[in-house]
């Protein structure tokens, strides 16, 4: 191939890609696939790397002193790296991702992604009692952000790809594609009806396929099939919800208190603060090795009914302390995995007691451990829907879903009642960031057009004369007026068009004549007439006013486009948001109906 041909091919490829970039929908789908595949591969590498390093650094049955030394040194090394080079890679990654999405235009740097990947791998491999899922989410979101920005996409496109990366990461980290989609919408976006749903689903599925391609079809936990033994067993699951709820509140409060204490320490101590977590987990691990690391192996044993009451109670308490300390001191790692561990131990304890008291009415402790996982997750992370689906996907056991829902909701409500602020918002607030909660975002979208709507001040007929109409509207503050024919609302006439017609000497012509001239009768009214419906979000009114260049828009019925229900005026929209204009600036005159 000659140099000219090569240049031609490259130019064509550039053009094709540029065309793709211009078509946002297609680009979004292609990028969802690409991000899904890339993030899936990165997370698989993360899982494998962490697992292999952990098996070498503190092997099962290894010397006790190694279990103290490794986490201490590990936290010292990663602490320095995090403080010196990767300050945004500390902690879970979920608050950081939400910060990037809602406040920083979806911006997460490549440096943060790299830092999170390696520091977190080292941290988890050295035995920190933290999880890999939260960090995976930040890595996934970061990769999506990096790719989108390097492709030169708009801020909105970059932001829309952040949850796509999150879903892909969680799908691979947990092997739960549906829960990953739900988590991205429920927790990250705070909106289950988000418009990015299609892209999120696509990336989650792609990432999950990559995971299966590389690691095969293995659920996170292999669990024996459980079933409800007796209807009265719901009461025991409800009791588990109560215990799990209070356990979750205790864990969150302890973590936040400890973290608050650490943030008050002098700035120069930041780099070795993680050692406190490392030393704590090392000392606990010296006596009880199961406390170290993510601990999924032990969770699986408990899920399969290998439960000794004293041991599971002890592990629940120790894991709460170890995780709270590791996280609060600034180590890299998440709280998803520990939530599942704590929940399984709480569930195992409750189930063990229930089964010993009422063996004929209750399933084995393993079933309770399974439900307990979801309960703690719902209580700590506050995503009840995600937790139900996640436990179902993790275990592939459908029969336990109703007890799980009951227990989850009880834990969720207890958590809401006794720990007002969700954990990720609280963590961000400790860093001086006020993330928008899902409630506040919902509040914002709750103002509807109907709340700011007023009756139309005037409706002109198609037979009205132009000059006469202009005389009526000349001193009014509105840019346009509804015009109706015998079937109802037909067009809007702008003041500017009336003035132009009069200046051209057409003042005695009818309104229909100038409106017909510049309108396309073949196009449907919905396209030619700028309008709103009463149930529209008020922000849409602003958007459409901006697009049409009008300060007033007609509000029409959804059942009949020609039925005028009122108008929305810019001033009323601003008033609805609490932004009042100077008094008298927007006084509307009384107009008689024409």
């Amino acid at each position, binding site marked *: 191939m000659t140099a000219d041909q090569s240049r031609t091919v*490259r130019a064509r*490829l*550039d053009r094709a*890609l*540029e065309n793709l*970039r211009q078509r946002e929908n297609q680009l979004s789908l292609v990028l969802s696939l*690409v991000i899904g*595949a*890339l993030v899936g*591969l*990165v997370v*698989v*590498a993360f899982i*494998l*790397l962490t*697992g*292999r390093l952990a098996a070498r650094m503190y092997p099962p049955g290894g010397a006790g002193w190694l279990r103290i030394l490794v986490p201490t040194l590990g936290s010292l090394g990663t602490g320095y790296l995090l403080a010196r080079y990767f*300050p*945004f890679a500390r902690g879970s990654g979920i608050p*950081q991702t939400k*910060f*990037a999405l*809602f*406040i*920083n*235009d979806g*911006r*997460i*740097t490549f*440096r*943060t992604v790299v830092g999170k990947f390696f520091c977190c791998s080292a941290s988890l491999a050295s035995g920190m009692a933290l999880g890999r899922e939260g960090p995976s989410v930040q890595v996934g979101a970061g990769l999506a952000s990096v*790719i989108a*920005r*390097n*492709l*030169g*996409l*708009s*801020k909105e496109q970059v932001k829309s790809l952040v949850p796509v990366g999150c879903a892909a990461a969680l799908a691979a980290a947990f092997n739960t594609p549906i829960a990953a989609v739900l988590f991205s919408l429920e927790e990250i976006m705070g909106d289950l009806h988000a418009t990015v749903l299609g892209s999120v689903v696509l990336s989650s599925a792609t990432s999950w396929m990559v995971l299966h391609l*590389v*690691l*095969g079809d*293995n659920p996170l936990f*292999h669990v*024996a*099939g459980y079933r409800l033994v007796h209807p009265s067993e719901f009461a025991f699951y409800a009791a588990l919800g109560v215990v799990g709820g209070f356990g979750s509140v205790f864990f969150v409060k302890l973590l936040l208190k400890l973290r608050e204490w650490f943030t008050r320490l002098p700035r120069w101590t930041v780099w070795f603060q993680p050692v406190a977590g490392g030393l704590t987990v090392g000392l606990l691990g010296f006596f009880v090795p199961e406390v170290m690391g993510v601990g999924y*192996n032990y969770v*699986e044993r408990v899920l399969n009914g290998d439960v000794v009451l004293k041991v599971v109670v002890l592990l629940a308490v120790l894991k709460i302390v170890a995780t709270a300390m590791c996280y609060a001191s600034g180590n890299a790692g998440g709280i998803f995995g520990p939530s599942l561990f704590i929940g399984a131990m709480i569930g195992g304890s409750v189930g063990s007691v229930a089964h010993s008291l009422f063996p004929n009415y209750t399933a084995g402790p393993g079933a309770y451990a399974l439900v307990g996982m979801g309960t703690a997750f719902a209580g700590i992370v506050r995503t009840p829907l995600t937790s139900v689906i996640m436990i179902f996907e993790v275990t592939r056991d459908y029969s336990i879903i109703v007890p799980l829902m009951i227990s989850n909701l009880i834990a969720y409500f207890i958590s809401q009642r006794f720990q007002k602020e969700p954990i990720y918002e609280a963590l961000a607030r400790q*860093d*001086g*960031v*006020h*993330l*928008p*909660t899902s*409630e*506040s*975002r919902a*509040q*914002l979208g709750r103002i509807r057009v109907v709340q700011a709507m007023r009756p139309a001040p005037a409706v002109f007929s198609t037979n009205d004369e132009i000059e006469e109409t202009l005389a009526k509207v000349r001193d009014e503050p509105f840019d346009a007026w509804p015009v109706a024919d015998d079937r109802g609302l037909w067009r809007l006439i702008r003041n500017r068009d009336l003035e132009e017609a009069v200046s051209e000497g057409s003042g005695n012509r009818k309104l229909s004549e100038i409106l017909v001239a510049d309108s396309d009768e073949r196009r449907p009214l919905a396209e030619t007439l700028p309008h709103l419906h009463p149930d529209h979000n008020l922000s849409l009114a602003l958007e459409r006013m901006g697009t049409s260049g009008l300060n007033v828009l007609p509000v029409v019925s959804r059942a009949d486009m020609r039925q005028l229900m009122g108008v929305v005026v810019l001033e009323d929209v601003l008033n609805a948001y609490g932004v009042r204009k100077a008094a008298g600036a927007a006084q509307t005159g009384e107009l008689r109906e024409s």
Partner: protein
Amino acid sequence: VTSGGASEPITKKAMRIKPSDNPGRRPESREQGRPFLMTVGLVVLAIVVLFAIDTFLAKTEKAEMRAEAARLFVEGQRFMTTGNHDQAIDRFESALAMTRDSQNYGLALAEAQFAAGRLTDAEMTVDDLLQRDSTDGPANLLLARIFVKEGKSSEATAYYHRAIYGHWQEGAAANQSKARFELIDLLARQNSPESKQELLAELLPLETEVPDDLATQKRIGHLFVVAGSPARAEDVFREILRREPQDADAYTGIGEAEFARGNYRTAKTEFLAALRLNPGSDETQRWLGLTNQVLDLDPMQRGVGVGDRNQRSLKLLELNVQLVTQCAVLNQSPELRSLIEDAQKALNQPARNSRQAPAVERNIDLAEKLWQARLTICKQNTSDPQDPLALVMNRLVQ
């Protein structure tokens, strides 16, 4: 800058933001970025490289896991041979956790749990194996054994069948025969008319399936007798004698077959022949004793004189009176009482030669009625093949 609905300001120290992540530094609405083509190329390259790395890491890890699992499996087997089932279970569980797709480890775990008496755990483990492969012969056989232990005969029979027709990785024919013999043993122990039919149905294919060694053929012959097919049993034993004319067990087997047919004299001849070849055989001695008891009790034997026949009928009557009186001490109906009184009278009558023949008929008739009464009132098993009285009475009633 506001945080959306919260409408609260973001502090400048927010998350200790560095300039690169600082929201204050607003990027343009569309960043310049790298050249589009270069970014796409880099992403594709990253995917390829990561795929290679992941595949390598996954393969390495899988190989290491397999090696470790194999080591644990060997350890577990060692514990099994020394009878340390709990340790074996622990090793097999760990091995299985490392290689979930291994049927062998799963089966070893289930066997260890079975051996340790943890039947529920063993059942769950086998269920898991059968979900993956419902035709797995060893898993089906183990589940059948678990059901046998749990006393669930019909479930056990079903899983024995699955084991017999299931898939065996090695030694299929031998293992299938082994499973069939276990099923046959189970059916033989049940000793009901239905189980005898099933037993016969299982034995017929065995004739061609099993190895041609004498021990197996003798076992099959005995089982044919248990299954109520003495003719087939005799064929099997005659074939053995053709090959091994001095085989005492074959003579005993023929004796058993003749005994089952009610040919007690022929049976006695065969048992005696067997004892000539192997005088020390307790089993043959027992059979001979039983045959003699039947022959001594049966009043309808050919060649027995009238006086002897009368004595035998009286003996039968006496035994029946004893049995029915024992079992119906409190529950004697008027009819039964009348029958017993008649029997007592017959037993107390002095023997008169001229009237012995009708007396024999009457005694046998009374004995049969008492036998039937015992059957209905006492609800006792009256078909014990090793009970001389039952053998004689059942023959007379027929």
